[in-house]
């Protein structure tokens, strides 16, 4: 009887949010099980528990019926578990073979590294993957796709019983994806357990045997891949028919004059970007991770340097050398990574909301506390942020509430916003709040504000944006109006050369 | 609240540990407001640096010169008329700005004198923070001290004297006389002409090198004086030695004299070692070497450097102070560290202890003490302490002389 993996009553809560709540399911050997769920459904938290990076608040992980107590990743690896994270865990300054054998380098007598064996076994693995990588090459010098493959080879080398992939195909080309799927097939035939976390439905139907659906940290159901279809999955994932999340949106039918014109924008990461944004229009910006969408908006916002190209705001050419200028001119950027780029976790909700408008809440030299509280209060009411007072440090809020704080910051009563740029605004938010966000975005559009809406959720960008620009590898590969847009057509543009 | 209770508990623990350390105020030297240890130790403490008082009258002979018996005995141990034990013991504290080994040893001698002239002795080191020195002096005044032995930063002597006057408590300088900004004495003190001392060190080497090397051409003798240029007294010590060397052998001075400013290496034995070995190896053509220093540590470092380069047969070292050299001699050391300009601490501190007791008794006012030592145009006396340059052969009888002096025989 080959191995079987069982999660029993797994629970985990972070300050202010219940990330996982009573999750139980079993996966037996020789099967590929997909873990499907919206952003913030608890997928990566579950993987962190499996890998021993964090400890479960309740319940436990069982292999062949025996409970596993992991206090560190080392123990998880020892009991045959390998997790390949989305953000690569590699050391760029060291070579390929040392990265692949990171953690247990083959050593001869007295702990000396057996370089010959290290190199030999590395070459074996590389050949079995058929990749043109040299064992002594510095990992930092490899293209991003190969770095991801090194990460996968690292897990393969351990020939663990259980291997989990977290969004592995995000930055792989088609040929590399087929190599990965071949490998997963091989692992399945060897009787191993493969967990495959992704929200690319096409991939899930291609290689997985069963699908576990999570929503808001709770277990929904397990489905056999053969017996289900996209619609049923999405409904299970979203918890109600997606139809009504978008249907209620009151669209803007006539647009004002051109608000923002970008022509032939050239930066270190993006090339020859040109598009227009009219006041009242919601422009979707879609594409795979790493397509350069964030880099475009950061360039416009003055956060990254512009090599050449022209930006016009309300017809007048502008060049923002730093974000402060863009904000003054009425451009707001809601950054993609909430914790790293958006929030000052130790400070209160009020401090975070009023941060960009401190000039407007001043009485002479000093900040006016009453005015600040007012601005914060409006935002809290507008986005119904669950908090006893605006003094609570943002650290103690849930992911969804944190995102609302940032939205509140950029759309506060004191912000004079002409162009609102939202980068993955609904990432890690529960579905209920998402609908609210879409409604607010449309309200802004109706007030004449131009919105640039970046999202990797195809269904979302198709249903919210009036017009969608698709990017790949730093270039615009196409433009689709909402009427003729479909997931397949946008994905096709996102994938094409 | 639970956490703040934990904080308070640990605070209690921390303070009880510190207080038990303070439990024995008697012998452990009183505290200073030191501002935290600094990892960079290049800043050697300033303050009165050791340089022994010269014997003004006669060039230092091998045998110790007799203290001049003429002149008043008020404020001296020789004054047998005083009954020191008819009163409660005074409370004296020795306040130093940056305690060094030399202050440590003088402190012990002052403590011994406390037993003979009836005062309780304690110490205070302000760790080169004169801000703390002055505030602590005010604090002690409130605690009822009867007198202060002081070694403030030389440049703050005037401020210290003024403060003592305000507080109405007699003070007496120990290592360095207290002068105001224009160089006039503001209290009686001991004569510490560092320049004169430097001259004596060089003079001894010049007078005695033939006993060790025979008849050697002076042009072949290099002279390295080790000092640290962060303190005026040390610099004067060097200037005295250098000028005497130039005065005696002017024509070869330029070529043979080597400046030994160890400031960058700090005040330690290894600083003396590294500096001396660099100079010796950088000048192999120099056949013979005089090495002199204003600090004992530098002398010890130079001795180790000479041994390391096995040049002992052509190096003569004379340091200022012999506190570690005497035990070495007793342990059989017979190396090139041949002599030291030395004064027994007991002899050096006698006039200070008895002087301060006289002031505290009110038997004399500062300007009355030792009129025979008043220089023209000075308000206060500047007592000259006999020093001697001792060698391996003469140090026993010097120790015996000190023994007799302290027991009040002569």
């Amino acid at each position, binding site marked *: 009887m080959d191995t079987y993996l069982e999660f029993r009553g797994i629970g985990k809560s972070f300050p202010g949010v219940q990330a996982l709540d009573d999750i139980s399911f079993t996966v037996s050997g020789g099967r590929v099980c997909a873990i499907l769920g919206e952003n913030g459904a608890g997928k990566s938290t579950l993987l962190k528990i499996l890998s021993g990076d964090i400890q479960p608040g309740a319940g436990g992980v069982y292999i062949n019926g025996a409970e596993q107590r992991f206090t560190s990743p080392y123990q998880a690896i020892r009991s045959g578990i390998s997790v390949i994270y989305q953000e690569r865990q590699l050391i760029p300054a060291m070579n390929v073979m040392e990265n692949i054998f990171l953690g247990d380098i083959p050593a001869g007598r007295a702990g000396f590294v057996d370089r010959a064996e290290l190199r030999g076994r590395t070459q074996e693995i590389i050949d079995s993957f058929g990749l043109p990588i040299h064992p002594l090459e510095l990992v930092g010098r490899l293209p991003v796709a190969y770095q991801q493959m090194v990460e996968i080879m690292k897990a393969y080398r351990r020939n663990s019983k259980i291997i989990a992939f977290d969004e592995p195909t995000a930055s792989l080309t088609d040929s590399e994806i087929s190599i990965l799927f071949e490998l997963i097939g091989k692992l399945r035939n060897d009787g191993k357990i493969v967990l495959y976390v992704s929200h690319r439905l096409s991939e899930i139907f291609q290689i997985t045997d069963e699908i576990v659906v999570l929503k808001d940290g709770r277990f929904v159901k397990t489905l056999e891949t053969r017996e289900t279809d996209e619609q049923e999955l999405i409904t299970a994932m979203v918890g109600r028919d997606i139809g009504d999340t978008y249907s209620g949106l009151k669209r803007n039918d006539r647009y004002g004059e051109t608000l923002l014109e970008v022509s032939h924008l050239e930066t270190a990461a993006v090339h020859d970007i040109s598009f227009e944004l009219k006041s009242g229009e919601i422009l979707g910006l879609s594409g795979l991770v790493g397509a350069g969408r964030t880099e475009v908006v950061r360039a416009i*916002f003055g*956060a990254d340097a512009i090599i050449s190209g022209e930006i016009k705001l309300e017809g007048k050419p502008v060049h923002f050398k*730093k974000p*402060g200028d863009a*904000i*003054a001119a009425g451009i707001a950027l809601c950054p993609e990574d909430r914790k*790293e*780029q*958006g929030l*000052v*976790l*130790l*400070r209160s909700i009020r401090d975070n909301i009023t*941060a*960009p408008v*401190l000039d407007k809440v001043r009485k002479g*030299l000093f*900040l006016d506390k009453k005015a600040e509280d007012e601005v914060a209060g409006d935002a809290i009411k507008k986005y119904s942020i669950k908090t006893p007072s605006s003094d*609570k*440090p943002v*650290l103690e809020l849930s992911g969804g509430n944190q995102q609302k704080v940032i939205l509140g910051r950029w759309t506060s009563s004191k912000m004079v916003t002409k162009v609102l740029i939202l980068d993955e605004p609904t990432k890690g938010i529960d579905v209920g709040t998402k609908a609210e966000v879409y409604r607010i975005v449309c309200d802004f559009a109706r007030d004449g504000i131009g919105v640039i809406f970046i999202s990797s959720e195809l269904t979302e960008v198709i249903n919210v944006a009036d017009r969608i620009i698709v990017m790949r590898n730093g270039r615009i590969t196409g433009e689709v109006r909402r009427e003729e847009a479909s997931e397949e057509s946008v994905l096709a543009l996102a994938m094409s050369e | *609240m639970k956490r703040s209770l934990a*904080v*308070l508990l640990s605070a209690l623990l*921390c*303070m009880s540990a*510190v207080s038990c*350390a*303070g439990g024995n*105020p008697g012998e*452990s*030297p*009183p*505290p*200073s*407001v*030191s*501002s*935290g*240890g*600094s990892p*960079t130790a290049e*800043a050697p403490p300033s303050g009165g640096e050791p340089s022994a008082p010269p014997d003004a009258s006669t060039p230092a002979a091998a045998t110790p010169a007799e203290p001049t018996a003429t002149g008043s005995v008020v404020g001296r141990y020789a004054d047998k008329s005083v009954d020191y034990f008819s009163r409660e013991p005074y409370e004296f504290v020795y306040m130093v700005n940056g*305690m060094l080994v030399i202050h440590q040893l003088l402190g012990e001698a002052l403590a011994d004198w406390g037993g003979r002239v009836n005062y309780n002795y304690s110490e*205070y080191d302000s*760790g*080169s923070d004169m*801000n*703390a020195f002055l505030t*602590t002096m005010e*604090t002690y005044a*409130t*605690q009822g001290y009867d007198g202060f032995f002081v070694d403030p*930063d030389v*440049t*703050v002597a005037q*401020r210290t004297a003024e403060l003592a006057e305000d507080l109405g408590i007699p003070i007496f300088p120990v290592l360095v006389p207290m002068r105001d*900004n224009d160089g006039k004495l503001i209290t009686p003190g001991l004569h510490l002409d560092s320049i004169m001392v430097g001259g004596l060190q060089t003079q001894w080497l010049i007078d005695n090198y033939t006993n060790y090397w025979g008849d050697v051409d002076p042009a072949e003798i290099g002279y390295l004086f080790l000092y640290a*240029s*962060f303190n005026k007294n040390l610099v004067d010590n060097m200037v005295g030695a250098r000028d005497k060397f130039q005065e005696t052998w002017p024509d070869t001075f330029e070529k043979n004299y080597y400046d030994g400013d160890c400031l960058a290496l700090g005040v330690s034995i290894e600083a003396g070692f590294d500096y001396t070995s660099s100079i010796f190896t950088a000048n192999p053509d120099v056949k013979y070497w005089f090495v002199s220093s204003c600090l004992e540590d530098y002398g010890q470092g130079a001795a180790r450097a000479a041994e390391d380069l096995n040049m002992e047969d052509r190096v003569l070292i004379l340091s200022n102070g012999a506190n570690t050299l005497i035990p070495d001699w007793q342990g059989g050391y017979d190396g090139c560290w041949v002599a030291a300009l030395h004064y027994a601490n007991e002899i050096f501190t006698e006039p200070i202890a008895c002087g301060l007791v006289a002031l505290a008794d009110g038997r004399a006012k500062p300007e009355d003490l030792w009129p025979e030592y008043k220089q023209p145009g000075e308000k206060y006396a500047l007592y000259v302490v006999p020093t001697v340059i001792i060698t391996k052969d003469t140090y026993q009888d010097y120790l015996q002389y000190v023994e007799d002096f302290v027991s009040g025989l002569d």
Partner: protein
Amino acid sequence: MKEGSKFLKSKMFALLVLLLLIVVFFTIASKGTFFSLVNARNILNAIVIVALLTVGAGALMISGQIDLSTGASGTMCGILMAILLVNGWPWPVAVVVALAAGGFVGAINALLINELHFQGFIATMAMASVTQGLSYALGGAASIPVDNKVVVYMGTGRIADVVPVSIIAALLIFFVYGIMLNKTKFGRSIYLVGGNPAAASLVGIDPKRISYILFINSGVLGSLAGCLFAARLKSATTTGIVSSQFAGMTAAILGGVSFGGGSGGMFGAFVGLLILNSFSNGMTLIKISPYWQTFASGALLLFALALDFSGAKKKN
């Protein structure tokens, strides 16, 4: 002026109780002399120099930076002022030039850290070594007398023979910086930069500008401390306030300034300063050996870090 969450309040309470405890403990141990008017004056005297360094270090630490060069550069500026005065420069010009020199050292620190990506503590330690050398070059062995009436009064003058003039300046500076940190846009941006520099730059705050300003400010305050010290002693020496920056840092951390920025204020730093100085002064009174005091100052720094322990832990 409430300083944010409950967490800080409970810590401020613990600090004030700790201060009270120290006062009571040393009053008993020193049979009353600790709690006398004269001794209070001594504590205030000792506070002035460290207070200036605490304000400079505290503001920098809130923005997530550290400056270990203020002691050495302050000493150098004290000597510089003395030399200018001796050469007949009018005192306002001499003081301003000395403060400018301190600011210049601060600017170099900021340049090394912001443009050349040095780590804060190693860059400022290197500058400490450089300024220490320059102190010796400028000052040499002989210390330079300071006898300009006005400057000396700043250092030694007292009102009603109890309250030193310089302490008023120190208290004023604490008050002004406290208001600035809590009440002004610039102060708020220091907290935001300290909490998350990347996020701060995306809301229009320039972390580099803040860093330059705060390092120059730390240099100027260090210089002021050096000049005041020279004025108080009526002479500038090469040892001056060479290792006082550690006391400033300890006081700031003790007062709740969490390293890595984002929290702590000037009121907390002032209480930390009172704790530090009454602790040292108390030890002086009950005659604890100076060597035990060096030990205690190190222990106090670790104890201060323990207090901040919860702050540091929460972040990583």
